[in-house]
């Protein structure tokens, strides 16, 4: 063993408090150390040059660099060794004598002594280091996007535009998500459908995008570059290859009184239906739950009227498995069900207490009221409207503790739209705070105030009917007075919550969710669109509440990550992984239970033991999934599992050296 120790001055950063020359001299006394040197700035080009030439001249086979934190320059020095010497880059240990020594200890003697210890520990560890090699895992250049809202559509388009095939999976019968239900978008007041539906058709027409509606993810296995995903496409009862989307069936279907999901229950639809005219795929499906033919066998009108014979009452779910290199989670959100939480708002008993999304449909020209603002109960124009913000949001007692972020702006938008369409109307907005951080947002809010919206700071504590209207009671916390407003209609701006089934999806993908249920990004600042499972990315509200611009930006970011991965075509594996010594493994499964990545499995292995062939169940590490945390190596009682790079021997030797 020929270990070289290089002690860095880091200018005066280290040398100011640590006698680096003494550290280098002391290092020479350590077992295996044949060379030591100091350097002004080891990470600089001349510093690296001197380390590399010392490695060559002294035929060093292991290197310790005593410098700043390994979190700072370990990668730099590994790269240096890999590129400029014949050494394996993993035959390197860093002794952190800057952040954890010279910067925190003033006493030169104590600092020097500690630096000597830290170098000795690194020497002990480097003595146990083994050559490690990265392997290149191929990447299947095909992406799966889960969720066909604007986030999923945008991500799919961006990836597809780069030339890679994408499967866009949507659980509903049309893509478009929530955005396509909106009337206008703040602050520019673009028509939401006008900007969303072209994206939808663009996705439908893109040859690289395959849209699978009424489809859910059944199971996922594998790892980055090579996920095997099983999808379940629910029976549609319509053969899309034959159907032309003429819509005749919809007009003839006798079951017409089903509340329209798209219109938030404010209108009805038929049993064979397209959720809205611009739906993509632009073809109907049969709602089996309400279809007379499927429920009782009597009817069959659609089959009779269909000019192309596309109706298939015997249609079944289709389960397919496909390999993907990357998965984008854009599963979006839904609005909190306020009716179960806010009894004081009538718990849904008053028809004129509606949600923001219902208001969007009412105000929309293609909505149930053709854009006239008419309240649901009697279809009259409300002269006084109250908008209540933070229904569910920022209310840990009843709803969720977080801020849903977009509501301040769409409350302002709703007030603006109302006052625009009902010029003699009065609009009150009850609020806790007005948060309008965003380009042009505060200006929009100010315009709404100029429009005449009356902002009252306070929560509405009760809504009760009086005459043909509703009274909203609450405290104006600025004046301290109790306010009672007689309203004709109340709009509740409800909280965004993770879409249903997020928990199941999270466990299938092995990604984490925060306490509020949104998917957790790998790092809140620096890896905002990645998850802790490599190859799985987050876009849109699935990761946390946000508005459309942020969602689209995030979708673009995700696409760039996926495109980057696909462009490389392969990924270099982290070689510091768990390694199993099958001769010691009992196949007890303790490791499998603790692995957070599902990287360990039990396999039947044919082994040669004591010159005999045996078949036993042993543990196997999936190198694509293992992230090198080492939890398994502790769960393994017999020591069959070890973590390369942080081996038991290396750790024990460090301990022993310290105790020397």
């Amino acid at each position, binding site marked *: 063993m020929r270990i070289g120790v290089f002690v860095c001055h880091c200018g005066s950063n280290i040398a100011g408090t640590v006698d680096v020359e003494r550290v280098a001299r002391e290092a020479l006394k350590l077992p295996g150390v044949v060379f030591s040197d100091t350097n002004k700035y080891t990470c600089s080009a001349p510093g690296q040059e001197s380390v590399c030439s010392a490695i060559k001249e002294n035929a060093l086979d292991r290197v310790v660099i005593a410098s700043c934190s390994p979190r700072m320059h370990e990668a730099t020095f590994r790269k240096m060794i890999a590129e400029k010497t014949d050494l394996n880059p993993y035959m390197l240990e860093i002794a952190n004598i800057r952040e954890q020594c010279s910067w925190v200890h003033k006493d030169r003697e104590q600092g020097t002594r500690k630096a000597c210890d830290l170098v000795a520990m690194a020497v002990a560890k480097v003595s146990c280091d083994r050559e490690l090699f990265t392997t290149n895992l191929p990447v299947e250049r095909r992406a799966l996007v889960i969720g066909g809202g604007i986030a999923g559509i945008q991500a799919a388009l961006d990836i597809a535009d780069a030339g890679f095939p994408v499967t866009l999976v949507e659980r509903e019968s049309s893509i478009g998500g929530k955005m396509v239900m909106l009337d206008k978008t703040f602050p520019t007041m673009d028509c939401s459908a006008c900007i969303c539906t072209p994206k939808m058709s663009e996705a439908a027409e893109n040859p690289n995008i395959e849209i699978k509606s009424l489809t859910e993810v059944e199971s996922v296995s594998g790892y980055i570059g090579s996920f095997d995903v099983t999808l379940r496409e629910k029976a549609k009862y319509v053969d899309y290859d034959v159907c032309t989307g003429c819509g005749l069936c919809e007009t003839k279907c006798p079951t017409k009184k089903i509340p329209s999901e798209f219109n938030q229950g404010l209108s009805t639809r038929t049993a064979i239906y397209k959720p809205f005219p611009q739906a993509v795929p632009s073809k109907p499906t049969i709602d089996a739950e309400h279809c007379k033919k499927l429920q009782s066998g009597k009817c069959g009108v659609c089959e009779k009227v269909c000019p192309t014979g596309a109706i298939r009452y015997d249609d079944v779910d289709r389960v397919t498995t496909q390999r993907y290199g990357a998965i984008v989670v854009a599963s979006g959100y839904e609005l909190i069900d306020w009716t179960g939480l806010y009894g004081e708002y009538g718990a849904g008993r008053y028809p004129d207490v509606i949600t923001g999304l219902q208001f969007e449909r009412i105000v929309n020209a293609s909505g149930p009221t053709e854009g006239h603002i008419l309240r649901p109960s009697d279809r009259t124009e409300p002269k006084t409207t109250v908008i209540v913000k933070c229904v569910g949001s920022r209310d840990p007692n009843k709803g969720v503790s977080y801020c849903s972020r977009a509501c301040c702006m769409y409350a302002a938008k709703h007030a603006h739209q109302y006052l625009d369409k009902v010029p003699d109307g009065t609009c009150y907005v009850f609020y806790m705070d007005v948060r309008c951080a965003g380009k042009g947002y505060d200006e929009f809010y100010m315009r709404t105030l100029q429009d005449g919206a009356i902002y009252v700071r306070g929560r509405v504590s009760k809504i009760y009917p009086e005459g043909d209207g509703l009274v909203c009671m609450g405290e104006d916390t600025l004046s301290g007075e109790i306010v009672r407003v007689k309203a004709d209609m109340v709009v509740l701006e409800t909280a965004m919550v993770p879409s249903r089934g997020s928990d199941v999806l999270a466990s299938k993908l092995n990604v984490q969710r925060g306490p509020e249920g949104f998917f957790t990004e790998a790092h809140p600042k620096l890896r905002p669109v990645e998850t802790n499972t490599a190859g799985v990315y987050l876009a849109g509200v699935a990761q946390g509440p946000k508005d459309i611009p942020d969602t689209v930006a995030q979708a673009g970011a995700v696409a760039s990550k996926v495109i980057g991965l696909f462009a490389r075509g392969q990924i270099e594996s982290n070689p510091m992984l768990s390694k199993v010594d099958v001769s*010691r493994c009992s196949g*007890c499964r303790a490791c499998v239970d603790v692995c957070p990545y599902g990287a360990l499995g039990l396999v039947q292995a044919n082994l040669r033991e004591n010159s005999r062939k045996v078949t036993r169940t042993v543990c196997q590490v999936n190198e694509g999934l293992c992230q090198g945390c080492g939890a398994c190596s502790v769960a393994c009682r017999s020591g069959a599992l070890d973590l390369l790079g942080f081996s038991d021997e290396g750790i024990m030797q460090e301990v*022993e050296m310290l105790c020397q």
Partner: protein
Amino acid sequence: MTANLTQQIRDRARDLLQSGTVSCFIAWEPARFEHWRTPVTIESPDEVDRIVVDEWCDQLIAKYALQRRGDGRIGMVARGCESRAVERLVADRQVSRQDVYLVGVGCTGMLDRDGGAPLKKCEECQRRNPVTYDEMVGETVEEPRPYRFGEVDRIESMEPEQRRAFFDRMFSQCAMCFACRNVCPACNCRSCFADAERVGWLEKDFGLDASRYWGLMRAFHTGDRCIECGECERACPMGLPLMTLMHKQVRDIDRLFGPYEGGGLSDAGPDPLRSYRTDDVEEFM
């Protein structure tokens, strides 16, 4: 234990062997001295009369199933402790439940072959009746579930120095013979960490540090999986009160993470130290 239990077990063993239900039958036979018993594995129906099952059968026999793996179904007398040991072996995937055929018997405790006093392990027993079996011979017995943490209470009430002294003396008596491990149904690793020649793993110098390292680590490795059969303590040639380490962990785990099970097959999920809850008690913040 009923008087004719031996005969009943012999009859069942003979039937099971004759019918081919099992390929062997594990029980006890008399040893050289009166009241001395030794485990026996019977392979032929002609030899079942060697079997004796009475209040002197002090060894736990379940672990002998491991050496018969792959040879067909293994018959076995199963008291509470054997049945729990089988569950442990199943949970640790060392045998499958179908590989063993358990002839259950209710047990009222074993006696010391040299003096006739009840064995300590039996006085602390929580499961006298088998928790799983394929057939029962005789009636189930009453489950007194005696308090088993008296020793733990006593030691916990001591000062650290006294405790250190107690365990220093205890571990200094350890012969490093590994009998505790070799009889323990939870110690079913193919290869034990103590047998690994690794730097810093386990010294062979028979010193106090080595025996403490062995004693504490073995206890920890089995801490969440101990079925409390007390076999380690019975087997220890130095008579060390090893169960005190197990009972300590059993009670801690029970208090910290919910009802202690140990057999590994409860509905509560995997063993306590290979699972977690995000709302676990927090004491390290």
